[in-house]
């Protein structure tokens, strides 16, 4: 099994990196870009076959460690 975790800054948090990338895209001619949010992506290789147990355990890890709920949101997918 593999877990894929996407971590993004909360909308309320200033994201100067996203804004800077957005400005650069505009300079390249991408005038239809309404917003950019720069986050991070983690792939976690898992042993075992119990997807639900893995999801629960990683959900807790996402909440306590892999993301900071004060400033970030996350999406967790088990494949």
């Amino acid at each position: 099994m593999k877990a894929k975790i996407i971590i993004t800054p909360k909308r309320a948090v200033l994201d100067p990196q996203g804004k800077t990338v957005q400005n650069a895209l505009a300079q390249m001619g991408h005038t239809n870009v309404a917003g950019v949010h720069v986050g991070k992506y983690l792939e976690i290789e898992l042993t075992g076959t119990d997807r639900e147990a893995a999801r629960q355990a990683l959900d807790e890890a996402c909440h306590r460690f892999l993301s900071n709920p004060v400033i970030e949101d996350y999406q967790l997918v088990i494949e």
Partner: protein
Amino acid sequence: MHFAVLQFPASNCDQDAVHAIRVLGHTSDLVWHKDTSLGAADAVIVPGGFSYGDYLRTGAIARFSPVMQAVREFASQGGLVIGICNGFQILCEAGLLPGALVRNRSLQFRCEHVFLKTTTPDSPFTNQIPVGKVLKVPIAHGEGAYFADPATLERLQANRQILWNYCDAAGTLTERSNPNGSVLGIAGICNEQRNIAGLMPHPERACEPILGSDDGQWIFRSMLHTLAARAPAKAA
């Protein structure tokens, strides 16, 4: 008084903190992050640096160090803990202080002297700062923009937990004097019980005139004053 100065892999202001405490005529021990005891410390300094290479998020990995459990216990008994720069980030990640520190608004690493207004003058970390005194203290960080949600900010204000705000040389809070985009221009806060504080500026780098300012001494003097006032109670 005796301080414990924590040392994580890639702490780099630990020796500065030790030196500043020596300049003030007091003693300290460096405490390795794998240690489970703080020794006979009267107060704890979580110093600046780039603990664990800032991997994942600043301070995110350091908070799991064994020594942090000892800090948690020390703080739960009312012990004074101050986190400076990366130390502030670690204390926020550990949940010992509310909020978080995010990337500077400018995306630049800012390394310069800033001015601080003491917003709450009667805390264990500020009680010796002369009234109205604007502190000149350096910053050196890339991720120092303080963030907390509106409900947390309201609580910080209602409980008077905002200890220092960025200001100009005259002590006025302006957008221009906010070096990193911190909400409300917050430079440092304390917990509700007022025994744990964190700030992005480096008071330990401003304890001698040769360094351009000795204003940082006031923060440590406040802690020392608080500890001295507690000492008789401790003996009894």
